[in-house]
């Protein structure tokens, strides 16, 4: 509890934690947006979400190592991950899209393990990071440091989210995706090729994850086995915000980032992951308790 005292004696430190948390939280929100998209449209909880993020990070890392500019790598990683998502849909997801949720959770969990192990074999088990070569701002007489790459990634993440929301609202394909989400059968009757829509949705999710992974590898680190935490974070954000609530996803993401940073500081970094997973259990139990108190009746 010493660290808690530090927060009270030096409130400026909380500001530091808050800023760091919120900047990281935008990336969580981006990955969660992809999960909400797949969940809403295909009724699948994609448990390979975190692994797609990490894979995106590794793609950026490899391209950067080959000599490309790190920021240029992000769109390339997004395109590559679109293809990965599209392929994953056609190989596996197409067979489970109509089945019950348990099968889809287990199958995507299997994909997650497969991707983990493949990344471990191909990229090695080491922790990797990409240097962005950006500086640091010192605020309040150097009491608060803001790493510039985190700010940049925050705005890239928000921009991507806005672009995606715009795509869903305005384009023909976005409308088809939303129509499928509302009622797949009706959309099919009206001439929407739902199979294509599903493939695109999963590909888009892959692209979003790829971009998020590129930001993760630049602001933080990637490691083949770190994926599950991102999956759980995305899931929590979607649960708290609700499917299809974009503003909610953003705020829940930022909030989670901040909460996690504070917990990591107060409890010690070794308990930060434990905090994330315990928070999931607590959120689910609370949500369930709330639903239980709710009474509904037929009119």
């Amino acid at each position, binding site marked *: 509890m010493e660290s808690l005292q530090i927060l009270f004696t030096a409130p400026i430190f909380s500001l530091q934690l808050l800023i760091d948390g919120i900047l990281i939280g935008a990336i969580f929100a981006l990955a969660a947006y992809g999960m909400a998209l797949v969940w809403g449209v295909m009724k699948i909880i994609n448990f390979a979400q975190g692994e797609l993020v990490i894979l995106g990070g590794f793609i950026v890392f490899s391209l950067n190592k080959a000599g490309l500019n790190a920021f240029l790598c992000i769109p390339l990683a997004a395109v590559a991950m679109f293809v990965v998502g599209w392929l994953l849909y056609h190989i596996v997801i197409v067979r489970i899209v109509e089945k019950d949720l348990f099968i889809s959770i287990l199958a995507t*969990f299997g994909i997650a393990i497969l991707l983990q192990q493949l990344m471990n074999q191909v990229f090695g088990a080491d922790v990797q990071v990409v240097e962005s070569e950006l500086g640091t701002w010192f605020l309040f007489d150097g009491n608060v440091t803001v790493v510039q790459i985190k700010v940049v990634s925050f705005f890239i993440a928000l921009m991507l989210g806005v672009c995606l929301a715009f795509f869903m609202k305005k384009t023909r394909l976005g409308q088809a995706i939303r129509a499928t989400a509302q009622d797949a059968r009706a959309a099919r009757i009206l001439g929407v090729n739902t199979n294509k829509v599903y493939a695109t949705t999963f590909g888009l999710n892959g692209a979003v994850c790829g971009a998020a992974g590129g930001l993760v590898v630049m602001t933080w680190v990637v490691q083949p086995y770190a994926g599950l935490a991102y999956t759980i974070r995305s*899931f929590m954000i979607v649960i708290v915000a609700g499917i299809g609530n974009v503003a909610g996803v953003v705020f829940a993401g930022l909030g989670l980032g901040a909460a996690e940073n504070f917990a990591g500081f107060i409890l010690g970094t*070794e308990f930060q992951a434990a905090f994330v*997973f315990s928070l999931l259990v607590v959120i*689910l139990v609370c949500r369930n*308790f709330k639903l239980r108190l709710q009474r509904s009746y037929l009119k």
Partner: protein
Amino acid sequence: MKTKGRNFVLYGSILLISLVAPLVLPAYGTQLAFLWVMVVFALTWDIVGGQMGYNSFGNVVFFGIGMYVTAVIQRNMHYDIEEYVHVAGRVDTLASGEYLAGLFLGMGVGAVVAVVIAVILGFCILGMGMRGQYFGICTLGLGVAAGELANGWEYIGAGSGLVTPVFPEGLGVRGAFFYYIFFILAIILYMTLKWLYSGRFGLAVNAIRDDEDKAEAMGIHTTRYKIVAWCISAFFLSLVGGGAGHLIGFIDPTEVAFAGATFGVWMILMAILGGKGTLWGPVIGAVIFHITQELFWTYLFGWQRVALGALIVGIVVFFPQGIMGWVRERWPERFGHRVEEKGVFSVSEGGGA
């Protein structure tokens, strides 16, 4: 009469093969012992996941609890904790009697602790009526959270793990010793489940799987049955966990004890492979899966885990009904199902799975 005689021969031969297996193949003692661990995994998962339809991803929690409680009790009974942690378990060896006392007491206490935790968690999760995918993901979080907590807790060795006491020489071969412990546990579990499934418990649990609201409306105490089913699962898992920790000899918080990505998924997979919701399915699934897994380990250098991942996806996507489900589809009359086809099949044999 004919079925009874055939069953007797079947059970007898399985029993006989199982009894002599470690004597015939002494080099594979540990792997054979783990075969029974896998059988217990699959059967305990199937109580909640298959028969009751609550797909838990976190049953491995109880395995880890049993493992840690057993190891900690044995450590605290015979050693000075400071000294033990300092030298990572390499202190003087225990006498056979001390070792056994610590092991069995630890397993017993571990089972009690696991059941108490299962009741508490059961009231928080099952008692509140959490269902479906939310239950699955909640238990997944539970499993990983337990691993991460153990990872940070100094008293039980934190991230560097806990080494169990050296196996005393007076008890013979380590693999064979634990083989018989797990074998007896698996037999007891099988008998218990056979008895439970043939009675009111089985019917109630199956009713919950088929339609929980209707089951409750018919007067079944669904919460009570759900928690009891979870407790049975926890009880046997923690017992087998206590032994498994000592068989492996080293308890790593996330790789051995709360290994959600290996044991936690395997138990689901074995039950599905064999056919969930049957008694023999998980057993068959466990045997086949364990053999496949060991073959992968031997012949696919470095790529075995990739192959396992592919196997998981393959089984779930292409073979979700399992072996027993497939057999039942193929020969329905063997399971007492009447086949409506112009008077060809008239005799319906009872028994079966």
